[in-house]
């Protein structure tokens, strides 16, 4: 095979042994790789009703068919499993783990069962070692990474490995635990870190010396350099992103009044200019960093300036700046860096931690949580309290033990489920769907729950990108079912090829197609490629249905549907999900209950 390595590493954790098997070529062709491939294998191999921490749950690490080839920003890896939230869990990460996995010869690893005691697994081409990790258990992600690299001795040698590990949060089964790669990237969402912990895997190390074969190398280089040129012409990609990171667009969302603030009580944050990408860069940025083969370079190294929160951290991403900024009502950028760094250090999902803490702040201010319960006053805009609670959450100490269960569980335990903002138990991101109607539909229907990265409708509703069909009125529901569906399908193609979705400002699906054909040598038409995306969306849906989810779960939090935006340019708006959902089901080829119809499945060549 070209593009793909054609091999799967199947690991039996209980026996600490493995088999190397051929990748099913038909499945690879139909799903491309990454998210689609992992979900298809999960669907075929596990009972979707299984408990996430049952040893029979499997954890799949999958790469895209372009990952590691040098295609633009094709660096992504997915970690997939039945999630602790009850859905199909699939978490996507950059850095170079997936590329290195391919250089080791594998498109995918399937972890089965559970190791008897903590282990870490070292993959060096075909040599797989299962090593004891009792001494690493309890260590945070930074310590773990340092220790494992020190064992390799020579710094160059140590650099040749990618390391994915969990921290105490994953070990202790937190619903919001992440997997951290090389200290600075995270496969964060859906509690995937807890699944890894339940399997007693502390860390995965991978190094490879093999090459990825391309079908038409010359054609590929021409296509790739063309696409690179295209990205270079994009202001968003090449001016804003490297300088200001993904948070460079934060002010735009504030200007339209959809920057969720104080647990989504409003969509305008008075200090937005103080925390946006530009402010963060001018105050803290030391060095720009990129994931593997990515020109956009949204990573970086930042240094705090407030001595209360002294830290050198990875440059926070848009969602991080939002959640520890606007959503917690905080304008102290050093505190944002500190909270961010703690989450990476202990292996936590930043969106979930921040969103849950913001909800607790609202509960505290409304008197639903007391100082006795929390241990200290917890008000919006108090950076000390915020950072303190992040730390407690990371360590599962005090009230942090409650936060570590995630917002959904906490809101129920303290009897105010109406204050939880999320979908399918997953805490919501920054984009208030009372403004962008399509985004509401996207979050309501995404398989893993409230996730902007499954269909970034703002590309059209706010930015009006020509590649996404131009500008649509954010407040209108008309046409949004179609917009959402096409964006969701195209996003699957990004995830399946292993391309970073952040490239949305600079490239779109046609550019992926350009590189896909010479890399794989398969003559996909553009429509066929997009069908691979639709198939992915459908298999995720089928998994969730078998897991027991219904159309009732395609919903938004009551605040989004019933509480009009109180102020700002979007004052008075709510999300009108019901105006879009039936049409969306029809376009998807799903019945009124949200189940894919037989006709749709046969059109996609799928079956239950």
């Amino acid at each position, binding site marked *: 095979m070209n593009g793909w390595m054609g091999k799967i590493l199947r690991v039996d954790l209980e026996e600490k042994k493995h088999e190397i098997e051929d990748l099913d070529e038909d499945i690879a062709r139909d799903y491309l790789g990454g998210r689609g491939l992992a979900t298809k294998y999960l669907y075929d191999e596990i009972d979707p009703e299984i408990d996430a921490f049952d040893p029979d749950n499997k954890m799949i690490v999958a790469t895209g068919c372009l990952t590691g080839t*040098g295609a633009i920003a094709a660096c992504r890896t997915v970690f997939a499993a039945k999630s602790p939230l009850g859905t199909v869990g699939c978490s996507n990460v950059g850095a170079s783990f997936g590329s290195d996995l391919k250089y080791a010869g594998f498109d995918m690893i399937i972890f089965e069962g559970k190791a008897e005691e903590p282990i870490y697994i070292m993959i060096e081409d075909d040599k797989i070692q299962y090593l004891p990790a009792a001494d690493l258990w309890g260590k945070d992600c930074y310590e773990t990474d340092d220790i494992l690299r020190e064992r390799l001795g020579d*710094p160059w040698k140590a650099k040749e490995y990618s390391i994915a590990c969990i921290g105490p949060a994953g070990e202790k089964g937190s619903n919001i635990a992440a997997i951290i790669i090389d200290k600075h990237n995270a496969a964060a969402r859906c509690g995937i870190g807890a699944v890894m912990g339940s399997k007693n895997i502390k860390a995965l190390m991978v190094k490879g010396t093999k090459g*990825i*074969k391309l079908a038409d190398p010359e054609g590929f280089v021409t296509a790739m350099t063309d696409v690179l040129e295209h990205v*270079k012409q994009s202001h968003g990609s090449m001016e804003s992103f*490297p300088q200001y990171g993904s948070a460079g667009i934060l002010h735009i969302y504030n200007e339209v009044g959809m920057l969720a603030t104080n647990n989504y009580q409003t969509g305008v944050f008075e200090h937005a200019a103080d925390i946006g990408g530009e402010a963060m860069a001018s105050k803290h940025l*030391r*060095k720009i*960093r990129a994931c593997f083969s990515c020109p956009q*370079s949204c990573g970086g190294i930042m240094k705090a300036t407030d001595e209360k929160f002294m830290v050198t951290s990875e440059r926070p991403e848009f969602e991080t700046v939002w959640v520890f900024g606007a959503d917690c009502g905080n304008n102290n950028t050093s505190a944002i860096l500190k909270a961010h760094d703690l989450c990476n250090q202990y292996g936590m999902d930043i969106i979930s931690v921040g969103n849950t803490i913001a909800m607790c702040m609202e509960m505290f201010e409304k008197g639903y949580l007391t100082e006795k319960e929390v241990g200290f006053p917890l008000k919006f805009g108090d950076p000390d309290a915020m950072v303190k609670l992040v730390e407690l959450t990371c360590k599962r100490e005090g009230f942090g033990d409650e936060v570590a269960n995630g917002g959904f569980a906490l809101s129920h335990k303290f009897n105010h489920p109406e204050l939880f903002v999320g979908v399918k138990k997953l805490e919501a991101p920054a984009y208030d769907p009372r403004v962008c109607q399509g985004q509401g539909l996207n979050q309501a229907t995404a398989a893993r729950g409230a996730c902007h990265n499954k269909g970034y409708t703002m590309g059209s509703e706010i930015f009006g990108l020509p590649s996404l069909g131009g500008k649509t009125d954010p407040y209108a529901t008309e046409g949004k079912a179609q917009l959402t569906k096409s964006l969701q399908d195209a996003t699957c193609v990004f995830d399946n090829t292993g391309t970073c979705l952040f490239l949305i400002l600079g490239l779109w699906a046609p550019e992926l197609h350009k590189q896909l054909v010479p890399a794989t040598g398969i003559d996909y038409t553009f429509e066929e490629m997009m069908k691979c995306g639709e198939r992915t969306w459908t298999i995720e849906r089928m998994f969730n249905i078998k897991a027991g989810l219904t159309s009732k779960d395609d919903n938004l939090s009551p605040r989004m549907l019933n509480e009009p935006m109180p102020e700002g340019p979007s004052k008075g708006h709510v999300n009108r999900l019901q105006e879009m959902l039936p049409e969306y089901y029809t376009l998807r080829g799903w019945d009124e209950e949200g189940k894919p119809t037989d006709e749709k499945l046969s059109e996609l060549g799928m079956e239950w």
Partner: protein
Amino acid sequence: MATRKEIRVDIGKCTGCRHCETACSLKHSEEGMVNPKLSRIRVFTDFEREMAHPIISGPYTDAKCTSRYNIIMDGKEYESCLLCRASCPTRPFFTEPDTEIPLKCDLCGEPPDPNCVKVCVHGALQLVEVEEDDAESA
């Protein structure tokens, strides 16, 4: 005066993306393989020390250096070999993993047309024209 082309490396601009490694390896692979381990340019990163440093391979030397020194960077001590561009018997970099054949940058042919420079969008690698000094042209 005669001129020649060479690559100028601006480490401050390097993001550590390693796109150059993929491009170089593909250019030199007869079978159409992308494999950074066969690249003639490798990027060393230590982001905690704000460092991303591309190193372009030079000639093979068959003996290790008899004198070595250490460099302290932001509090961390590294051997000088870290940033050396030679492939030598004591350092496995810039040699083919299987055959141990040394890898050396050839500027992608004559006239130079470096593939690594083409993908380096941040200008960390640039092809520049320099005057050849007398000793070299002689």
